[in-house]
């Protein structure tokens, strides 16, 4: 065989090797600190993982040999299950620790519990905690990846990402859309994560709710505030209804359930004000007849169940990106 190499070589003095490193975080603590490029990169990665769910064997070896600890200091079924299933689909091993079974009830500090988990070679720690900043506290002290699964009223980044993913999937883009978030904004980590990510990707955000739960301060985040739901519904591309957390509501903030429904519930009648292509979203669990009427929640504009499916893909992407890098 004659090889071209033996003839007069063409010499190229400089060859550019360019590597685009688009993710180099071990932790996901919030969406505030992410760039628009990083957010889009997670959503693109989630696209690839969503497709795994359509295969005959819905499992890939991407995180084989890694151990994931679901550490939920505040109750949650939906988010915990979603992370657990995401980890299974990536072939990671999963341990679940909830408040009742953890030594936190015996007075062990959060840091000590986490140090113990690390001593067991936990690679990824999923933390839900009632105190804002708890995930960051651990991320700064542990080698393991820390993923925030909701901390106090601070952030719930994977919920924000799955909401964005769903909007992008249904609408084809996020920029230029008018997204209306309704409900208890003040105490909502879901709202915060959504606001940070939506504004970074160029959406116009309007917050709607009683003035006690939607304070003017939020305007500093680059959003519009309204207390008149019927006025904003006709221009909305997306309506995201937050759950009214009756169990946490304090009387001085909340007008009372009847009054709330009358002013801010997405009733059948109000839903008629929406454009036919407006998406209706809800992070769940839904209080039927409070934030949203049953017919509307089950109607063809509702993408509530798509959000659940997409949550799995987004969490697989986050686990892969944060947990897959050599530490």
């Amino acid at each position, binding site marked *: 065989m004659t090889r071209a190499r033996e003839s007069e070589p063409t010499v190229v003095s400089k060859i550019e090797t*360019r590597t685009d490193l688009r993710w180099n975080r071990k932790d996901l603590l919030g969406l505030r600190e992410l760039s628009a490029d990083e957010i889009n990169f997670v959503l693109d990665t989630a696209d690839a993982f969503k497709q795994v769910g359509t295969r005959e064997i819905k499992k890939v070896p991407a995180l084989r040999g890694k151990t994931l600890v679901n550490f939920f200091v505040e109750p949650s079924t939906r988010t915990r299950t979603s992370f657990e299933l995401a980890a299974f689909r990536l072939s990671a091993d999963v341990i679940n620790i909830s408040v009742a079974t953890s030594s936190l009830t015996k007075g062990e500090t959060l840091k000590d519990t986490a140090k113990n988990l690390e001593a067991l070679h936990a690679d990824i720690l999923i933390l839900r905690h009632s105190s804002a900043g708890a995930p960051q506290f651990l991320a700064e002290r542990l080698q393991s990846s820390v993923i925030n699964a909701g901390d106090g009223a601070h952030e719930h980044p994977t919920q924000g990402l799955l909401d964005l993913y769903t909007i992008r999937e249904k609408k084809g883009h996020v920029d230029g859309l008018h997204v209306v978030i309704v409900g208890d904004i003040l105490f909502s980590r879901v709202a915060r994560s959504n606001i940070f990510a939506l504004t970074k990707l160029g959406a116009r955000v309007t917050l709607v709710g009683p003035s006690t739960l939607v304070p003017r301060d939020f305007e500093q985040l680059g959003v519009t505030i309204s207390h008149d739901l019927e006025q904003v519904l006709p221009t909305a591309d997306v309506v995201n209804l937050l759950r009214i957390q009756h169990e946490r509501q304090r009387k001085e903030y909340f007008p009372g359930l009847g009054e709330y429904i009358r002013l801010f519930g997405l009733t059948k009648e109000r839903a008629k004000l929406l454009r036919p292509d407006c998406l209706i979203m809800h992070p769940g669990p839904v209080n039927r007849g409070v934030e949203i009427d049953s017919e509307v929640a089950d109607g063809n504009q509702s993408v509530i169940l798509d959000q659940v499916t997409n949550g799995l893909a987004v969490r697989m992407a986050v686990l892969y990106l944060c947990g897959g890098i050599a530490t």
Partner: protein
Amino acid sequence: MIKSDTTAATAVLIMDADAIRRALRRIAHEIIEGNPDLKQVVLAGIPSRGNEIARRIADTISVIEKTNVEVGTIDVAMHRDDVGTRAELPIVQASRLPLPLENRTVVIVDDVLFTGRTVRAAMDAINSFGRPARIQLAALIDRGHRELPIRADYVGKNLPTAFTEKVRVRLGDEQETDGVWLIKEERQ
């Protein structure tokens, strides 16, 4: 976060655009010869250059046989065996294969066949979609140094290389600038 480093290197042209075109035409003929029922064949490219090669082979087959062969794409990133040991994560993409795969012949298409680990990952990915009748392998360049018991059914060019050398393949929209080069890096 864009890292850019420059190293001096010599690049030797191994195949020009014509040579690539001829090699792919021969592979197309061999695939036709080896697969009497072309309707059952899927050309599954490994991103990104494998996709381009698969597309070109499919185009050539449709010209020769007047039959359209299905083209798919296989993501190997999530099936790799070295995740967690690399400083940089491979970018994952969605796989697309026509389903069901039962009774079909999937031809994995890649630009350079080297250690065989990528092909191993591609076979794992394909099997997660179903159980094809056969899996075959086509590569534009076979540069040797296999680390797994894998060989190609269709090869554009066998190119003996040193392990430290690199093979660079360019397949653009304007095919005139296409080429395969052997790169030797010189430390500065």
